[in-house]
């Protein structure tokens, strides 16, 4: 199948209108972000604590919010996480003075008091580690191995504890004693000891992230610096390999892409975190990549026919590279799209940036980059100076 064979679209003709459309679009999105009120900065950049918890029952967000505010965590942000059947929730708090090392202790004990009030023991299988479980089993010695040798007994119970907790490692949460009786390393006596001395709490902690305000400020600074320096790096590379006018065109196109994607990202309510920066940097790379291929063709065509006007050469080059531009964007869209829909919550915001980035980047490499390179030529070029 061949797309766009021998097309002669006059891309440059309406360039002024497209530039106006882009500028208006950027202004509207940025304005909307400011009116909307805030950038949703994640704990990576402002500091704070984020706890991911898995429950037996689907968590009720309002109830969790109430639990948190009773515990004195006033500004907790709570949202469900993962797909519906997974019963996971994400609790995020900002940094509290005197609690710079994180609020995870406060959050978890508040949850414990609310959901595990009727606990039958002080050993929660859903929260404790394998080493303490091994110690507990060693103490009760259900398999009668202590008389032989203490060392052997420790090793034995270490293994039993590991295989018990392997279930939690796979599923995230213990929900029934039956799941334990199927494990071959767990004897009937061990199961009895576990039933008597432990309980299965209502929730398990899947992840804890805590970032101090100092680190947050640093990451913010480093993130902005990384994006700016990568832009400068691109400009210098294109300047060096091509000419300054192309570098200018590519730079304007990239800044255009980053601003639009950032605006839409903020409007969609996604959280800004380290992965967002990674997404934006990749977008910078992709956007320039797309543009450079067009410029490469412009340069080649200019060498061949020196007489032609730059604007005509650009039009010709855009048409020649059109099917490549569309096809590459298409395959990239296929993968980032599947990442967005199938890749899970953690990668969704990242995939969102790239999906938008590929679309906007393709548009800008046609309608923004070349017109601005032309503009540079018209203002500073040889013909302008004559």
């Amino acid at each position, binding site marked *: 199948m*061949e797309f766009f064979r021998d097309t002669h679209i006059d891309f440059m003709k309406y360039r002024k209108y497209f530039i106006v459309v882009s500028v208006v679009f950027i202004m509207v999105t940025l304005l909307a972000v400011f009116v909307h009120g805030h950038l949703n900065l994640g704990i990576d950049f402002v500091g704070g604590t984020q706890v*991911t918890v*898995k429950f037996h029952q689907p968590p009720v967000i309002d109830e969790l919010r109430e639990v948190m505010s009773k515990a004195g965590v006033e500004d907790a942000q709570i949202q469900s996480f993962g797909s519906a059947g997974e019963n996971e929730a994400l609790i995020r708090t900002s940094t509290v003075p005197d609690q*710079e090392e994180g609020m995870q202790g406060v959050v978890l004990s508040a949850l414990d008091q609310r959901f595990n009030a009727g606990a039958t023991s002080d050993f929660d299988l859903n929260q*404790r*580690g*394998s080493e303490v479980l091994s*110690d507990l089993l060693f103490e009760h010695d259900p398999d009668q191995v202590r008389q032989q040798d203490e060392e052997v007994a420790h090793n034995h119970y270490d293994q039993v504890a590991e295989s018990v907790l392997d279930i939690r*490692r*796979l599923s*995230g*949460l213990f929900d029934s004693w039956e799941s334990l009786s199927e494990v071959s390393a767990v004897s009937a006596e061990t199961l009895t000891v576990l039933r008597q001395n432990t309980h299965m709490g209502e929730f*398990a902690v*899947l*992840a*804890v992230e*805590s970032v*101090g305000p100092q680190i947050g400020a640093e990451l913010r600074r*480093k993130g902005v*610096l*990384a994006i700016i320096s*990568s832009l400068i*790096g*691109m400009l210098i*590379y*294109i300047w060096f*390999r091509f000419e300054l006018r192309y570098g200018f065109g590519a730079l304007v196109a990239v800044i255009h892409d980053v601003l639009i994607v950032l605006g839409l990202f903020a409007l969609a309510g996604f959280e800004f975190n*380290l*992965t967002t*920066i*990674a997404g934006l*940097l*990749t977008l910078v*790379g*992709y956007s*320039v*990549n*797309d543009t*450079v*291929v067009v410029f490469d063709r412009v340069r*080649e065509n200019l060498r061949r026919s020196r007489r032609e006007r730059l604007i005509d050469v650009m039009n010709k080059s855009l048409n020649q*590279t059109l099917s*490549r531009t569309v*096809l*590459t964007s*298409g*395959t*990239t869209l*296929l*993968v*980032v*799209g*599947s*990442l967005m829909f*199938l*890749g*899970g919550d*953690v*990668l969704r915001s*990242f995939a969102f940036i790239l999906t938008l980035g590929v679309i906007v980047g393709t548009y800008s490499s046609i309608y923004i980059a070349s017109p601005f390179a032309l503009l540079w030529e018209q203002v500073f070029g040889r013909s302008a100076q004559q």
Partner: protein
Amino acid sequence: MSRSLVWRGSLIAIAVAVALLSAYPLSEKINYGLDLQGGIHLVLQVEVEDAVRSETTKDMDRLVQELRDAGLGSASVEVTSSSGFDLRGVASDRDDEVTRVVTEYLPGWGWSRRGEEIQFKMEIANAAEIRKLAVVQAVETIRNRVDEFGVAEPIIQRQGLEGDRIVVQLPGVDDPERVKKLIKNTAFLEFRLVTFPLGGGGVGSREEIMAQYSGQLPTNVEILTGAIHDSQGAVIGQQYYAVENRPVLTGRDLRTARPGIGEFNQPVVNFYLTHEGGKLFAEATGANVGKGLAVVLDGRVVTAPNIRTRIADSGIIEGSFTRQEVEDLSTVLRSGALPAGITYLEERTVGPALGQDSIEKGLRAGVIGMALVVLTMFVVYKGTGINAIVALSLNIILIFGALAYFGATLTLPGIAGIILTIGMAVDANVLVFERIREELHHGRTVKSAVDAGFGKALSSVMDANITTLIAALFLFQFGTGPIRGFAVTLSIGILASLFTAIFVSRWIFDLILSRRRRVERLSI
């Protein structure tokens, strides 16, 4: 087959074989990041000013001591900052004496007279050295503690070459709170003589002690507190002890410590003293039989038993400990005290369940995305599509081979990087194929169209990939952990796709074209 085809084919075969060998079996050869296998990532800050301050106090005491010995008994000092203090009560005609003492006993200090007082300032190089040593020693201490914990492949290192931060990464740890406590535990152990109640034990209130000293504590005595436990080990109250300021011994005098069982079958810590420590301890306990000896840990009294006999080189710390507490306490006592306090700046703990889930979802997205790309290439380029598919498959093999070979870590964003590479790797193929089509449209023969296509597309392919590589380099520079993993897979993917799209793909074309003398049609 021409010789060129043979050696190029062999080179490709060798590259693939090396990649396969280094990556097989995948589950053993690839390092999974903490976000995929679960574990704890900590960034902690050593409060280095504490170390400087304690050095200042030590040197200051030394100075006063030496000046007294030199007959300047009226000297008094006052701390002004973590690395400075003022000396008073020394007449200016005795400055020569001060110079002598400072040169001999306080190297690394500078001083200047301001009228009545002399200001002491630690030299910058000296303070920097103390800060550096504090961090190095903290890394060492934490490493000792973590080693005792039995974590496989822990990472404990100073962040950057300068600075006071330490990064600790412990894969597979499932009890983060315990680990954090263990690492942070300063475990400053002291043995101090009890002055009231004289035989040891404590009293119920602070007032009781103050009454004993008629409202005014002697300068060498202070009041410390300790918890009271019931038989189950739960804290049921607090009691007070009057103890001497100066410890008889500290944790530094310990040779080793081990968990043990006491006479009532309760967990205890057995400790063994160094030769020097043993002499001091024997002297002190011998002279104070019948008095109380407080075991003080981080400023809290653990227990204050009665000294029944002279103790020479070993002893027992009894308290209301659980077995786990006894193990952890022995560990920190053995590993030595931290030179300064520690603050946690960043903690990221991921349970294995979440990581497993991420791997599955990432894998699914990757497989489906790749299938769609393969399908597209077939639809668009027909027979030549196979060429792109082969290049794509080799690309993935090379990425995993390189990851395994360089011991790089695969993270969740790293998986995203591989998936993204799949989409972008075909770009180089697309550039070349489009160019070949163009040349065919211009009426060239298949062979010369392929030649021209590769030749003309080369500069575009290089430029396009180098720009992405530049972005990946900045990403690597910026990123920590997972993000760095993304930069790594993206960079490797780009390099691999350059190899497959330019070298391998060309070889496949040449191989097909060499079969027949004249090729009339190319399925593209």
